[in-house]
């Protein structure tokens, strides 16, 4: 029975990780197609990807959108969580629900809604509109993480700070934010990961400047190539770094 458990575990992880492993392995393919048989190790596809201007521009765009939209989502989520944790309004349950609502809506629907809104208001599609989409996507996450991290200790310390003469801005900046730093960083890096990988909103809400997933999609239309695998590996590495940072920070907090 015990052995069966290990088999199940291996099968589970294999199911999750095998596609990624195959993707990474065939990004080193010394040949024109990222399919078996493996014809030898070559770094030429990685070199090609790294010297591709469009891809590198898209990579920079993705980093910009992920960084800025995550920062905005984090600040908004933190302020909302702080307000709702401190004040008991008659409808605060509903307010919390409303803040979490975008999580329950599919990205496609969100994107269509935002697209309609931008068309109506005459806003041109750009990296900014994609960034707005990513804020909508990540705000519930940031709010939820910040809200869960706020406890009685937090409230007591804020009260003490006010008692000692701190203004509300000083309370937020000198007491609340530093006390919640691990949660804030975890929320930020998770947001960065989601924004970095996000395709649907970015595809529908950008036009000339695009993010990396959109650029990869246009590469895929011209057929399979180990170059796509190489880009995929790079994206994967960046995501792993962000997730690991978030995990480390969350665990650092629990200790």
């Amino acid at each position, binding site marked *: 029975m015990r052995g069966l458990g290990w088999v199940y575990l291996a099968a589970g992880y294999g199911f999750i990780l095998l596609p990624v492993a195959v993707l990474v392995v065939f990004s080193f393919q010394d040949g024109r197609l990222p399919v078996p048989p493996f014809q030898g190790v070559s770094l030429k596809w990685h070199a090609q990807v790294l010297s591709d201007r469009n891809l590198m521009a898209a990579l920079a765009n993705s980093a910009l959108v992920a960084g800025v939209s995550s920062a905005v989502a984090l600040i908004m989520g933190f302020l909302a969580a702080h307000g709702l944790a401190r004040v008991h309004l008659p409808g605060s349950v509903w307010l919390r629900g409303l803040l979490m609502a975008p999580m329950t809506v599919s990205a496609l629907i969100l994107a269509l809604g935002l697209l309609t809104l931008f068309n109506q208001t005459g806003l041109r599609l750009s990296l900014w509109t994609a960034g707005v989409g990513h804020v909508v996507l990540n705000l519930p996450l940031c709010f939820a993480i910040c809200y869960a991290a706020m406890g009685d200790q937090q409230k007591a310390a804020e009260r003490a700070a006010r008692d*000692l003469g701190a203004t509300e801005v000083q309370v937020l900046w000198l007491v609340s934010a530093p006390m919640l730093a691990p949660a804030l960083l975890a929320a930020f890096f998770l947001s960065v990961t989601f924004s970095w990988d996000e395709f649907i909103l970015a595809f529908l809400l950008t036009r000339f400047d695009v993010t990396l997933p959109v650029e990869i999609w246009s590469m895929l239309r011209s057929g399979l190539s180990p170059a796509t695998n190489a880009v995929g590996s790079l994206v994967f590495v960046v995501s792993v770094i962000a997730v690991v940072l978030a995990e480390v920070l969350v665990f650092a907090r629990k200790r």
Partner: protein
Amino acid sequence: MTAGVSIQSVSQSYGTTRVLHEVSLDIAAGEFIVLLGPSGCGKTTLLNILGGFAEAASGRVLIGGRDMAGIAAKDRPTTTVFQDYALFPHMTLAQNVGFGLRMRGMAGPARAARAAAMLDLVGLAGRGDRRPHEISGGQRQRVALARALAVEPQVLLLDEPLGALDLKLRRAMQGELKAIQRRVGTTFVHVTHDQEEAMAMADRIVVMNAGRIADEGPPRQVYLSPRSLFSAGFMGEINKIPLDGAQSALGPLALSGTGPRVLCIRPEAFAPDGLPLGPARVLDVAFFGSHVRVQAAPLAAPDLRLVVHLPPAALPQVGAVLNLFAGSHVVLDA
């Protein structure tokens, strides 16, 4: 700096429950006041109103003659030592103590010097670069005190600050708090439900019950001549004998006055002579070191139980009959 406090018919309600009924109290500058009462008596609410954490529904609070209406906690000349200390976990002890000074715009070096001096005052000299999680509960308590005193408040509010400490440490801290208060001269308003703590520290005890002041005065007065039955019972063990005029279950007593009242006698107030209470049979005897505790039933009223403290030398036998006299007593309205 120190200032007096004037609380003028302050009332407060939570929903439909009134927690303070027209409470009025004048506190002199430099006085050590203890608000004493059971939980739910309104003492913490009153402290919150003084600190600016709650608004009184009606009435006024003056601190140093200045009306505090509409003044937020951060702008009041008060600081608070909280029951849970509420230290800032991400700051060192010196940064904690210097926080209020930083908010008042004091420059770094002056702040560090003052924080070090305050830590010295509470017996934590040289520990300024530790963090709150590295020190014990009693030490955190001292840091909270130093932090609150560092900004030289006119009034220091203490919300059951010793409640989380073990008994021995609590008794030691009571003495220290009192000594520090004498040294800095600040008005202290201290909330507790422990009457021994109140007597150990207070210049004046204010006994509260159900949102009203039940009694107030120096510890000796509140203990020996309480003004209400609640206060008499809360300050310590007491024997209560119902009276109707001079008539009681023990028979007629040598007391003047009319109507239903209660004769109150502390266990240690029984003496070889005084107000004669008649004979009583000893039911139980226990030796407590500083005294002998005797439970006795008066022969005239066998259902009544009296608790009598005798000197440790006396050790009466169970079943013996004692002739009881009250050396001192108080008669209160029922």
